[in-house]
């Protein structure tokens, strides 16, 4: 764009800038490389602290153990199931609310929108929510991880603005002239025209659900078989950072370090697989959210 004099000074400054940025960027990558290397190494090298960025004595033994561990696979299944149901439900609620509340003629729309947005700034808090979940008999069920967070005011806002700005009202009016009701308009005009934003928000819901563990920690205490992967990982790796043996893992542990490392990679891979595809959408939606005014 603009031209600069390439003096030795500016070249040096440029070099320093690139170096600094490369260093900061690498801090986001190298920890994974290290953990990955550990997970692929033989126990002896890891115990001897000789693994840094490359695996030593390449082996997949740790992953073999994980894949044989029924409880980890069970957690993976719970996570997938919960994420899928949560995303579907979340999108259903978001689309219905956003479409209805983006219609200018709807009476009460302002009050209802306020009710939705209010939940963004004030909540009952951990304990009242816990009591409600308990009262509904949802504790220790997978629904505890699906129902409460499925309506997201933030996603609703993004969806509503996308519909309001992306779909001309005249389109709706002409459809109504042709005798189409709102259900019909929603299903055959609004949803098909909103595919990009629906994809983005689905990813929002899915990634958020996949990564969260706080509600599972609160609501799933006895039913070990309902622990999602993140919670399982929490008990396995984080809480047991000092004493791995507390958790009764069915795999036979020779060295927890390698196993911990492979657990981390195992739980990260699904995110890493979708990351290249979701990144672009997420970046865009940050802007959508930022210019919500």
């Amino acid at each position, binding site marked *: 764009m*603009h031209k600069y004099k390439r003096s030795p000074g500016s070249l040096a400054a440029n070099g320093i800038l690139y170096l600094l940025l490369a260093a900061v960027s690498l801090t986001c990558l190298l920890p994974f490389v290290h953990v990955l290397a550990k997970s692929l190494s033989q126990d002896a090298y890891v115990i001897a602290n000789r693994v840094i960025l490359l695996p030593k004595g390449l082996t997949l033994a740790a992953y073999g153990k994980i894949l044989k561990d029924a409880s980890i696979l069970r957690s993976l299944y719970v996570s997938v199931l919960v994420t899928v149901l949560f995303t579907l439900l979340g999108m259903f609620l978001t689309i219905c*609310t956003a479409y209805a509340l983006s219609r200018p003629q*709807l009476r009460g729309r302002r*009050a209802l929108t306020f009710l939705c947005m209010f939940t963004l700034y004030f909540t009952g808090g951990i304990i009242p929510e816990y009591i409600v979940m308990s009262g509904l008999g949802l504790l220790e069920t997978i629904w505890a991880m699906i129902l409460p967070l499925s309506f997201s005011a933030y996603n609703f806002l993004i969806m509503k603005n996308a519909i309001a700005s992306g779909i001309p009202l005249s389109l709706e009016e002409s459809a109504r002239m042709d005798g189409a009701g709102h259900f019909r308009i929603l299903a055959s005009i609004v949803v098909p025209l909103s595919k990009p934003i629906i994809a983005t928000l689905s990813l929002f819901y899915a990634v958020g659900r996949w990564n969260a563990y*706080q509600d599972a920690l609160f609501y799933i205490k006895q039913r070990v078989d309902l622990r999602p992967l993140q919670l399982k990982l929490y008990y396995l790796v984080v809480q047991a950072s000092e004493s791995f043996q507390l958790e009764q893992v069915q795999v036979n542990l020779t060295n927890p370090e390698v196993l911990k490392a492979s657990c981390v990679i195992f739980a*990260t891979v699904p995110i890493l697989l979708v990351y290249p595809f979701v990144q672009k959408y997420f970046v865009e939606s940050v*802007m959508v959210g930022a210019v919500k005014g």
Partner: protein
Amino acid sequence: MATEQKTAGAAGSAEGSGAAGGRGSGSAGGASPAAPTGPAGPVQPVQPAGPLGPAQPAGPAGPMAPIGPGGPVRLRGAALAIARDWQLYALLVIPMLFLALFKFAPMGGLVLSFKDYKIAKGIWNSDWVGFDVFRAIFSHREFFPALRNTLLLNVLDLLFGFPMPILLALGLNEVRSRWFKSTSQTLLYLPHFLSWVIIGAIAYQIFGQSSGLINNLIEASGGARVPFLQEDAHWLVSYVLIGVWQAMGWGTIIYLAAISSVNPELYEAATVDGAGRLRQCFSVTLPCISSTIVTLLIMNLGRLMGGSFERIYALQNKATTEFTTTIPVLVYRWGIQGNNFSRATALGLFQSVIALILVLASDYAAKRMGEEGLL
């Protein structure tokens, strides 16, 4: 939101007054909770097609019409709105049910803060105790450390976490190599997509005392092992650094967008005036994005009472207890682990109210300064 509501301003203001004016809407009296009945007068001009809009297809209005007791169908106000838009209200039924059950019912549970909750008596029959629960909290020996920790961790986050994305964005903006820039961004955004459990697990792999990578390297070069995560002061530093690391890349997005909308002529003029790149950065770019910076700063100030439970829980361990007990952690410990629901609810309410006040104050401040605000 604001702009869009202006286009529908007439409808909005009519409803706004509807909540207060209980005059009902004539014969039909649609007492539906979804549509507050408003004064019939001001509402009429809003409806595009007048009463029983002739343009409407007969379908929706049909089944609703006989409800009005006034003989020949003359729907007005709320009843007309429901008759015309019943499908829209139908779409809202399930979401509103979710909202009521999972968002507003818990707010009702906040009454526990003013009661002496006994499980046997239930929420409603437990005895009212006024502000006794709050008095008990404020004099509890764990309260002030938790309040201090909440504020301390958030202030440190703000202090170190806030400038980092700005610096990174300014740096990335100076990069001319497309490839380098997009690769950096891909790497920098990555931590945002990882759960705190995974980040915590990786942190222990890197910073752990007995087998962490950094300590292995320190020892190999002849140093002594450092308890990065296993001693209070070190933990505090690690906690803040890991948080900065996790959020810095993602934070650049908004600044990069702001920078990209700076008028290029300004740079050209600065170049003509002989300003170098560093000078342009400070004299053109920074002033141009200062309003974005101020807005985000104010928003962050509004979050000083917040705090991620997941982050603390994923990074804490038994050796570090001094700074890890924040208010959310204490709520969890008192309530879910200790079953003292009244006390934990009141503590949560205390936090929510302060947080709400901070958000409203920061929004007000942002608007006073001519920014968009966040509400």
